[in-house]
């Protein structure tokens, strides 16, 4: 699975979501419960607005100095016996993990829930190299048995009822018990315990890495992440490059924000901070630890007006607050990141081409922005996306004068400019000759039919224009 789910069009997915009565009901009651849990937890904590401010300050400071903190993190992990791999793309990350699996002759990999491994399609990559991959989160396990995509970041199997789950267990695993949630969970506990004990590699995501000490922190309730990192001899943690805080003092704040905003708990049952490999005198924990830090399009967002989208701590509060999500359900977004944050992030990571309907999946009521524990102006980002899409769609059809004006405006806002193509500058290379695009992909296509267009470099409109003149004269 990659960031994009399925091949259906946006309209088809929405219709399917609306037609699924159980899903709609489940989503709406889940939203209500998550939302009231969040509000209650916020109230309990007191000074919620100040906490949000603190959260925002932490996230923006970290993002502004991301290179520094990632450097520090990698030094610390190395000191503690771990290996760090910086992966520019999903493919690089997957290939590295495949390489480790090969070296270890791994047959079985147990995982705890992680968005970034879904984003890069790690399960498929591992299966290709002959590993059995077991998702150990209860909800993820259910989906895996059923080969179904997740519909919610926090409770991925939200769209399934217990009778469906009982059937899945019976069909795939020979379960003979009732559809009582406790009985279903006990069965999963017993089945998965064997997997934890026999796995060669444990794979986790990373909620927050701590730069000062090299710790990777996992926030869970079920205890499976602790299993995954305590029992197999090798632990691989895959983190989105933005999931980092400077010190343990910041960690404490963002964890408090995450657990309260996500599930309304003061803390979840397990907050586990793992640093490097186990020590010589220790018996459990991995003897081999790898941290894979993934860019996969994130760096393109840095330095743009969308930078704060990288502040996201994946709490799903915006999703639970969203009236559109309530109506259409998680699958309609066609992305592993649903809801308002998905509508903001998906086009940034995967390009506008396949996702240009997403920014319209919002009423711009701003409930998301209000819910966000790190104050990301989500609805403003959605408005900006729409403007960019409109500007781009108009491009091909208007007279040249208008086009030039449009371009000047478009290119002067660096986000629109940098994000206007599916890939970053370097990825554009195959289409460039002497840094001129003669037949570029996507939005530039209309332009390149009639003229040479500069490769998106940091070149001002004026200097491009000058060069173009020169080229014309030379040519």
């Amino acid at each position: 699975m990659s960031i994009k789910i399925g091949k259906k069009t946006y309209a088809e997915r929405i219709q399917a979501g609306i037609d699924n009565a159980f899903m709609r009901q489940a989503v709406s009651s889940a939203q209500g419960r998550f939302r009231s849990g969040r509000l209650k937890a916020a109230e309990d904590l007191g000074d919620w607005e100040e906490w949000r401010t603190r959260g925002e300050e932490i996230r923006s400071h970290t993002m502004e100095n991301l290179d520094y903190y990632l450097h520090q993190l990698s030094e610390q992990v190395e000191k503690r016996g771990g290996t760090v791999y910086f992966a520019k793309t999903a493919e690089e990350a997957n290939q590295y993990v495949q390489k480790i699996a090969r070296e270890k002759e791994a047959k079985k990999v147990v995982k705890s829930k992680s968005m970034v491994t879904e984003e890069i399609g790690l399960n498929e990559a591992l299966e290709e190299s002959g590993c059995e991959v077991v998702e150990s989160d209860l909800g993820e396990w259910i989906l895996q048995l059923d080969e179904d995509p997740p519909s919610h970041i926090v409770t991925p199997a939200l769209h399934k009822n217990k009778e469906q789950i009982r059937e899945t267990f019976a069909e795939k695993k020979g379960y003979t018990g009732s559809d009582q949630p406790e009985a279903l969970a006990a069965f999963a506990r017993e089945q998965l315990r064997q997997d934890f004990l026999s796995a060669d590699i444990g794979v986790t995501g990373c909620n927050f890495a701590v730069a000062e000490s090299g710790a990777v922190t996992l926030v869970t309730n079920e205890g499976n992440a602790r299993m995954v990192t305590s029992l197999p001899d090798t632990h691989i943690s895959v983190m989105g490059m933005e999931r980092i805080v400077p010190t343990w003092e910041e960690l404490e704040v963002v964890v408090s924000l995450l657990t309260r905003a996500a599930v309304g708990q003061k803390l979840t049952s397990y907050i586990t901070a793992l640093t490097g490999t186990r020590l010589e005198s220790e018996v459990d924990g991995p003897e081999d630890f790898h941290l894979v830090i993934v860019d996969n399009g994130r760096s393109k967002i840095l330095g743009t007006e969308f930078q704060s989208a990288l502040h996201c701590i994946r709490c799903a509060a915006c999703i639970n607050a969203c009236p559109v999500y309530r109506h259409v359900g998680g699958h309609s977004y066609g992305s592993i990141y649903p809801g308002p944050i998905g509508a903001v992030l998906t086009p940034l990571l995967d390009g506008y081409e396949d996702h240009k309907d997403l920014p319209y999946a919002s009423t711009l009521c701003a409930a998301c922005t209000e819910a966000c524990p790190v104050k990301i102006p989500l609805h403003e980002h959605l408005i900006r996306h729409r403007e960019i899409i409109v500007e781009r769609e108009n491009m091909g059809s208007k007279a040249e004068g208008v086009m030039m004006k449009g371009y000047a405006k478009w290119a002067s806002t660096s986000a629109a400019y940098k994000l206007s193509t599916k890939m970053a500058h370097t990825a554009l290379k195959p289409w460039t000759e002497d840094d001129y695009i003669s037949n570029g992909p996507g939005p530039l296509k209309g332009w390149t039919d009639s003229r040479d267009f500069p490769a998106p470099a940091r070149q001002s409109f004026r200097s491009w224009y000058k060069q173009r003149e020169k080229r014309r004269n030379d040519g």
Partner: protein
Amino acid sequence: MTIHHRESFLNNIADQLGRPRRTEVEPPEYSVQPQDRVLAGATADELVDVLDKQCEVIHTNLEKATVETLPEVLRTVLEGYDVRSIAAAAGPRNEVSGLDEFYNRLTGEGYEVHVWDEHEGRHNVEFAERAGAGIVFSDLTLAESGTVTLFNDRFNGRSISLLPETFIAIVPKRTIVPRMTQAGRLIHAEESKGNPVSSCVSFVTGPSNSADIEMNLIVGVHGPVKATYIVVEDM
């Protein structure tokens, strides 16, 4: 080589941010400190009360004891759970609390007690896997959230608090602090002094649970199903 592709990766980030690589960063000054006000000035007894209340929320049973009554209290807890096999953390605190003697007595009565022993390697984990209860000492206890902090080490293996169905934490009263803020601060201070944090810090809050099936809370999934904290007044 243990760090791969770092330079190009980080150079690109600096580029995108439109500035040269940063090799030094001043710690930020934050405009607000809401975390310091939570339970500020609470006395030790007040913190115990907060912990007690929170334990109800997290499906955890809380008992109180003194060093003298601890064995008795622990025995009642074990009998209540009908547990006959115990994986226990090692270390000097067993002596201080008198638990080592108590464990000997239990063994004499036919209980199976295994105190973590690094020299026995994987056997520790195997025992924990079939033990009915795991007993550990809290290193730092967070009143607000009802959280037991474990600095896992050679005395306190990760499996003890994870694999058995019942989780029992001995909570010395003086380990109780208002909230996670104090834990973060302490670890940060130690790191700054050059004392590296333990390879695994586990913040454990009650038994494991899940809401993945129709949003119903299920207590007890992969980790422990039941939990008891015993606050020891004079430890």
